[in-house]
């Protein structure tokens, strides 16, 4: 379960403080598929970065299960990112010179896993995103849709409980976006908690719940029918 209490994040541009988040409260249950919508600059990515422990809050609490991640050390946060969270970003963030296999295996290596177990897990993850035939291809030779699917495979390789996706279809055409959304839905059906930031209402409608943000606050919490 994700719990956010009175979350604030202030940036300083010059001497003037800019409050990207002005006191956000939200709760996301285990196994939920949640979309965070809003216009550009509304604070949705900032919120996701904070929940994903990529950034430090100025004020407030963030609970991932029993962990208050706003108080944990960098080392513990790294372990949480590795074991509990899978990230999917608009720009994929793959290692361009690595093969698909190597990219997907990275989180496993970082968690200390090596050997034939890794191969089985990577093959399984790639099967899920329908990229088994590209296992030896270099990441920089793939299309955008394929790269995003590799990123999803990498995100799920350690079997994390949470998938945080920041505009996962932002760089993709309609067909590929559809594919990615279907994969996310499939992951959700498999029990993953998915938090997706998007400005596309069509994508957001595929989630169970939609949080709408504006000016650093959640202005709407709507359950999708």
């Amino acid at each position, binding site marked *: 379960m994700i719990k956010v209490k009175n979350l604030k994040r202030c940036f300083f541009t010059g001497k003037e403080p800019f409050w990207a988040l002005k006191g956000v409260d939200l709760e996301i249950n285990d196994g939920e598929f949640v979309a965070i919508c809003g216009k550009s600059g509304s604070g949705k990515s900032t919120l996701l970065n904070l929940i994903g422990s990529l950034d430090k809050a100025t004020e407030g609490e963030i609970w991932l299960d029993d962990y208050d991640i706003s108080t944990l050390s960098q080392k513990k946060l*790294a372990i949480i*990112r590795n074991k509990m969270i899978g990230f999917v970003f608009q720009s994929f*963030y793959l290692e361009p010179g690595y093969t698909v296999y190597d990219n997907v295996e990275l989180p496993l290596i970082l968690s200390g896993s090596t050997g034939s177990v890794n191969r089985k897990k990577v093959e399984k993850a790639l099967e899920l995103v329908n990229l088994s035939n590209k296992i030896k291809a270099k990441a920089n030779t793939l299309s955008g849709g394929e790269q995003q699917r590799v990123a999803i495979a990498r995100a799920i390789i350690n079997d994390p409980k949470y998938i945080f996706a920041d505009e996962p279809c932002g760089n993709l055409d309609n067909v590929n976006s559809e594919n990615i959304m279907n994969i996310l839905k499939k992951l959700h059906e498999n029990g993953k908690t998915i938090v997706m930031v998007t400005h596309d209402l069509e994508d957001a409608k595929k989630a169970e719940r939609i949080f709408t943000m504006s000016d650093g606050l959640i202005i709407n919490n709507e359950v999708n029918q």
Partner: protein
Amino acid sequence: MKGILKIILKETAFLKNTIIMIGLILILFSGAFLSVLSVRIDVPNGMYKQIDNEDIKIGCMIKNVTIKDARNECDLLYGGITGITTDLTLNGYQNKKQVINKTEMTYKDFFSTRTRGIIIGENTDFQLLQEAAKQDESILRGNLPKLAYEVLISNYIAQKLALNINDNLVINNLNFKIVGIYDSAKYFELYKETNLPAVSYFLVMPDDTILEEAYLNFTSSKQLQLSMKNFNRKGYNPIAVEAMTKRLEIINLARAFFMSVAIVLAIVTFFVQYSLIATFFRQRKAQICRLKLLGATDGKIARVYCFIAFMITILAVTIGAFLSLLFNKYFINLCNELFEYEFISHFRAGISLITGAILIFFTLLIYRHSVRKISKFNIIEVIKHE
């Protein structure tokens, strides 16, 4: 650790950087090596000659003592023979201490060394050997020289250089013929017994553990020529004793120069290391952040880049070792004038350790700085840029 190594191996761009780094290391290594080698060569020649399975280290001749006998009367008690007076000037190293133009010497200074020599000469030079022959019957084989190009050599040298009667020697482009071999053990006895006017120049070796032989030879002009360069069985290219002082000065200058080169290299090395690390982290910032995003701890990332630190350590220790060598080599001269030999040995070892420790300390410092730098990388910043 296996996994971390796998990441290192996978990192192709990283390997490219490594190749550049290895190249730089090789350049720096060669620089240090050459500077040390140059010093060794120049002291003087640094040449090794195998004679009857015994290394004769010509380069060690720098530690010889040269004594110039001006044949003037003075109050020096010479070999216990009263009435023989000489004015001696000593250049070089005596009892492991460097001395230049030393004029006051004692009996002990002189005879604490072991010396054997080739004597080549005529007229008064022959008197020494003639006296020897007469008094001690020390001519083992052959005859005393009668002509200017005929020479005697000691039995010891004859054996060492496998020379025999009727062999030819070339010294200072002059041809000499060996006509007799005398008993070298009697040499100093001869020297003491005679009035020594013939021995106008003298060369002794204080450190007989390094080199047992010092080569004496006399030309017709009665100048001692020290055979050091191109030391061959039948071809000598001697260096005049008078040139020794200047040579010492030149050698010291050369040493100072090469030491400066080595110090500059060491400083450059640290700058190169630092800029390499800095450039590397700048270039790989995005990758480091991606690794952090995927859950790599700063420590794990540091272990990946520990490979760099490891290479730098090898570089530093290698250069450090050579630097120590060079430092010792040069520093010992200064210490020679100030301290006893035993102290110097320990001091030299200490200097080596300290130099090594300083270099390792700097390496660790750079590494620590690198790790701190990694921990400060902001993932969000990089994500936004990408």
